[in-house]
């Protein structure tokens, strides 16, 4: 769902930015100023004993005390390990299935309704189901995160394969490529699509990882958030929100960096 919007948006922006009144681009960084001012006002004029809106400096104290208890880094590591494993497995499964489904031309009609239904199942509802069937463990988290984040990769790969340039598909036929060579040519040309899928899937995988930890109290950053909420430790809740934001930022920058480097090595993209 999300992948397709960003696809549309990117496409239409590319075609029309020169001729639109907004112009091109990334929002300038000084746009962060309102947020910074807000935090500053909160810090200076906030009530130091507020339960609902603890001042920003108390967030930092909370993070620090988590670190001293030693739970901070082990939790981050647990979350990161689930996330990394899931995104790798999801990429492998998504690319394989996407390649297979993109190569059969009756697949669209027959499978679209099912795929549509499955990818729109909310991960939140699936977590308790997975927990009751598989038990509360890392394997369960992996299954759920892979199940939720595989769709953007699968669909993006499939549409990349279905929209291969006619020249390329007829070359594949004419050269009678088959087996591994055919697959490698197809993966190569679908690479931008695969990477687009991964870029959409990565933030989703992080959210579902946190969600699984949060709902089942499986150790990780999500479980830290849950226990902070249950203890009404509001400063810690805000601090962990900040941490989750930082994690999301890190994930996004890593994925963008990988995407850029792969595409650079792969050569100019002509889509």
């Amino acid at each position, binding site marked *: 769902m*999300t992948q397709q*919007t960003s*696809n*549309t*948006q990117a496409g*239409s*922006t590319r075609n*029309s*930015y020169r*001729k*639109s*009144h*907004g*112009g091109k681009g990334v*929002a*300038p960084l*000084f*746009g*962060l*100023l*309102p*947020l910074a001012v807000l935090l500053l006002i909160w810090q200076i004029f906030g009530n130091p004993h507020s339960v*609902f809106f603890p001042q920003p400096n108390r967030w930092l104290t909370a993070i620090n005390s988590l670190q001293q208890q030693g739970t901070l880094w082990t939790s981050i590591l647990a979350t990161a390990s689930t996330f990394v494993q899931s995104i790798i497995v999801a990429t492998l499964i998504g690319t394989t299935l996407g390649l297979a489904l993109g190569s059969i031309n009756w697949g669209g*009609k*027959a*499978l679209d*309704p*099912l795929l549509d*239904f499955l990818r*729109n*199942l*909310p991960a*939140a*509802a*699936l*977590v*308790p*189901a997975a*927990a*009751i*069937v*598989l038990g509360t463990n890392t394997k369960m988290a992996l299954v759920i995160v892979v199940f939720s984040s595989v769709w953007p990769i699968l669909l993006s790969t499939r549409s990349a394969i279905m929209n291969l340039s006619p020249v390329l598909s007829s070359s594949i036929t004419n050269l009678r490529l088959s087996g591994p060579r055919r697959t490698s040519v197809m993966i190569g040309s679908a690479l931008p699509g695969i990477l687009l899928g991964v870029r959409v899937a990565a*933030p989703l995988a992080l959210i579902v990882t*946190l*969600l699984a930890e*949060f*709902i089942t109290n499986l150790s990780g950053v999500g479980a830290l*958030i849950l226990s*902070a*909420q249950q203890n*009404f430790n*509001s400063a810690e*809740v*805000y601090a*962990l*929100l900040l*941490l*989750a*934001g930082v*994690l999301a930022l890190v994930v996004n920058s890593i994925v963008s960096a990988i995407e850029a480097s792969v595409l650079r090595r792969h050569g100019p993209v002509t889509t």
Partner: protein
Amino acid sequence: MAPPNRQIRLIGWIAPTILVVLWQLSIDIGLIRFRYFPTPVAVARALYTIALSGALYKNTAHTVLVALIAWAIASVLGVAVGLVVGLSVPLWKGVMASIDVLRSLPIIALVPVGVIIFGFTLKLEIVIGAYAAIWPTLVNTVTGVRQTRIELLDVGKMLRMSALERLRKLIFPSSLPVIMVGLRLGLGLSLVLTVVSEIVGTPHGIGNALISAEQALHPGQMFAYILVVGLVGYLLNGVFLYAARIFSPSERSREISR
């Protein structure tokens, strides 16, 4: 309905049917062995039970209603703020980075903040649902408005339209397809986040029923509710696309559903 369309529908039922039959068989012959993994027949039976007791109707009505209220609030706010930010270039430069930071905060980490402020109340469900839905609407409205072609604005200037007229007759219609995509994404998100806040602790709706079924060790009922959440999301999406097709020309609705 045109024949090819009906054909697609018929074909579309084949894959789910095969999947369900495989699911049933693999449990029956012992290929899959989990203590609490229900068969499709058990799920259907549980669905029948909750439908008969009225719990299904009550919970679904609650969740759908809350999600729609949250979505409506988010849509009004998102489009309004999006129009303002998209129309003014200095304002866009001044606040867009802040908006980008706020919207990329993982929403699941915000749920506990909501719990601390509102407790497990109806307000929590609505606020969380609306907060999740506002970002795609807002961001797509900004994008849509900023994509308005300069020629179109020139036409407005030439015809000496007032600013309000230009917005109503030129900018808004030309950005509508992109805004509609945002609204559609928002609808899905508000449903999901409503269910999340129910799972986390609000004592109403599908999410709560799902967790109660888990704690009572009724996997059949649990999977029945998951099926219902999936169907509700599917139907809301379908209704939205159908409405979009009625209210806007065919070319646009194709873009919305893409």
